[in-house]
């Protein structure tokens, strides 16, 4: 019998597989650092910024008393207005596309419930605000497409018993469409982006160091490409809306107006029911996808007698789930001690890797537990100076079994490379392995945001909980790669294996107790 959790997971997994397949194609073409699919959220923000700038220009020419003529005036500016308007439209479409992909990715990755509920719900409201803003923008032009959308939206609003006069009457034709109607559209079109800014803040409020814009190269490329397209293919000027003429074939923006044919066919009540059900389902995703309590991963906790108050876990946590608070039991180690807020913790385990004395982490996943597992691994495998231990993220490319089939490579899967304590790397090398190859997800595709970044700094740049200086860095290789970069990762692994075999082995001082070396705490060893 399949449990509710399994069914939900199966749906998300199917979507996830489809997404990963598309991402892999994009990886091969663009490479993971410039893959726009790994930057869908920040790309949407960039496009919103482009819309703001182009919108400000168009605002100068818009007239609520003669909306269509105003747009004609803009389109007559072949040197400016025409392509600026097209850029505004293309950006709006691309932004919705980016937002849709972003939401699907979060859904498939199970990143929509628990501590991420606020981000999901605010993201859905953001999407709603974007749609609303888009609709008001289309209607402002007052062409045949605006007429189609305007009439169906008015019929939809008339289903709600809150208006003293039917909105549809605006388009009946017994009197001209008043300029106050266009003023209201303009007001909403300008005011909604302000609300979007607030929602964006809310959307990212539970993240430490939120990234707002894509990397500069990608941002420039996206802006330049959209501008080129707007110049080469400006949107066609449609005929002016006429409520006494039935609209025939009208080019419809499917991003914002996908619902129009549906609404025309089934009427306003079914249309309203569609939006109601879709909105309720989307907003309920965090509660639908949430696993049963027994299947949820436990949040991290801090062993206060081990905590030295260094605040590194507090600094590294990507979700601001750790605070430094005064100790309840005074200690000579520090006045402050780390404390996890369970409601904010996604159980990523990144704090495990950031805690030198191994005093923090989810239950059974602390640094001490990692060391115990590594000891068991070393005991179970014959490690020698020609062996390379491959640490792989099971969330990413590491799930590929083909990588471990290289001669002399032993795979050691970890949940997230960011949670790998550097002492584990040292222990594996001490156990006789000739090298350690860590294969993480692409930096911008880490399911826990900052895993590869922090690990790289701990291994190569002496970030707190660092890999000790006594470990020969030539024996450690860290590669960030996405699924589409599998062949390149495999090549780098082969090269590393050859390098390791060409060396006589690493020389590490004997008999170092890794736990007491990392900690000044008087604790029981694992």
């Amino acid at each position: 019998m399949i449990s509710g959790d399994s069914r939900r997971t199966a749906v998300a997994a199917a979507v996830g597989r489809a997404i990963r397949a598309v991402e892999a194609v994009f990886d091969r073409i663009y490479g993971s650092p410039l893959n726009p699919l790994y930057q869908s959220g920040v790309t949407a923000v960039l496009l919103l910024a482009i819309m703001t700038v182009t919108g400000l220009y168009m605002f100068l020419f818009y007239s609520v008393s003669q909306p269509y003529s105003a747009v004609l005036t803009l389109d007559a500016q072949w040197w400016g207005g025409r392509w600026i308007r097209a850029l505004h439209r293309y950006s709006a479409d691309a932004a919705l596309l980016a937002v849709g992909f972003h939401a699907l990715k979060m859904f498939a990755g199970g990143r929509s419930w628990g501590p991420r509920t606020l981000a999901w719900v605010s993201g859905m409201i953001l999407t709603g605000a974007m749609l609303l803003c888009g609709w008001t923008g289309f209607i402002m032009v007052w062409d045949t497409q605006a007429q189609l959308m305007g009439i169906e939206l008015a019929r939809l609003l008339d289903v709600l018993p809150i208006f003293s006069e039917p909105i549809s009457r605006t388009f009946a034709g017994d009197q001209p469409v008043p300029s106050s109607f266009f003023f209201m559209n303009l007001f909403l079109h300008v005011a909604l982006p302000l609300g979007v800014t607030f929602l964006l803040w809310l959307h990212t409020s539970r993240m430490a160091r939120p990234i707002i814009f894509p990397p500069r190269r990608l941002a420039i490329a996206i802006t330049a490409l959209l501008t080129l397209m707007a110049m080469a293919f400006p949107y066609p000027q449609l005929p002016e809306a006429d409520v006494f003429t039935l609209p025939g074939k009208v080019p419809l923006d499917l991003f914002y107006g996908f619902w129009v044919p549906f609404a025309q066919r089934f009427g306003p009540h079914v249309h309203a029911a569609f939006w109601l059900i879709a909105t309720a389902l989307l907003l309920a995703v965090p509660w639908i996808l949430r696993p049963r309590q027994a299947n949820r991963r436990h949040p991290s906790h801090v062993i206060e007698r081990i905590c030295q108050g260094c605040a590194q876990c507090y600094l590294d946590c990507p979700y601001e789930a750790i605070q430094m608070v005064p100790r309840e039991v005074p200690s000579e180690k520090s006045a402050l001690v780390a404390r996890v807020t369970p409601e904010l913790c996604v159980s990523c385990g990144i704090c495990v890797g950031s805690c030198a004395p191994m005093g923090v982490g989810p239950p059974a996943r602390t640094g001490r537990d990692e060391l115990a597992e590594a000891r068991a691994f070393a005991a179970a495998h014959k490690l020698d100076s020609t062996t390379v231990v491959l640490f792989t993220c099971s969330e990413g490319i590491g799930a590929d079994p083909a990588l471990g089939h290289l001669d002399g490579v032993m795979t050691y899967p970890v949940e997230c490379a960011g949670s790998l304590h550097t002492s584990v790397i040292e222990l594996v090398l001490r156990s006789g392995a000739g090298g350690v190859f860590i294969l993480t997800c692409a930096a911008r595709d880490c399911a826990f945001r900052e895993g590869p970044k922090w690990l790289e700094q701990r291994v190569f740049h002496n970030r707190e909980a660092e890999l000790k200086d006594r470990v020969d860095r030539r024996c450690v290789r860290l590669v960030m790669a996405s699924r589409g970069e599998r062949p390149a990762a495999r090549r780098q692994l082969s090269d590393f294996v050859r390098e390791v075999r060409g060396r006589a082995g690493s020389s590490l001082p004997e008999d170092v107790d890794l736990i007491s070396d990392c900690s000044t705490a008087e604790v029981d060893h694992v």
Partner: protein
Amino acid sequence: MFELLIRRAAQVAASAGLLGATALLGQWPSGTEPHHAVLRLAWRLPGERVKLCHELSEEELARVPIHMRRPQECREWTLAYSLSVAVDGREVRTRTLTPPGVHRDRPLFVHEDLALEPGVHEVTVRFAPVAPAIDGALTPAEAEQVAAAVAAARTDAFDGALDFPPARVRMLTYRGAEPTLTVVDSASRAAGS
């Protein structure tokens, strides 16, 4: 070098494909050329009201707290209207329009779109008040008062042959201060405005 060139070409092709798809979905050909015409009925009618009042007797006044005493007690209704539309002698729409609002006292709005075959059609429209359903018995004088109010309320009708060009809307409405239903289309509205 060759691999880099291939990669750049793939990037250009993929970007062009993505942008092209976005542009195409942004102006997807939708809908079909309409082969019908529309008769639109659109107007607004402020509530026609019926008010029944009676003088309160000394005894009735005595039962009411002193600060709430009024010489008259009134009941009020806004009239509903029946709308019937016939085209070429065949009834195509009949409905009763009840005043909207919590107190059922808001103006009536008529907004009906009726699809017709293009060509000339004989159109008959009747728009008449409906006597309100009143709880409790009425005195003969009150019944007479209600009947008089209903009879005095605005009643409209239209009878005439109208030409409906394909894909066009012809509308019956009150135009400006004109007291009867008038035919309006884009040409006549442009001329009138």
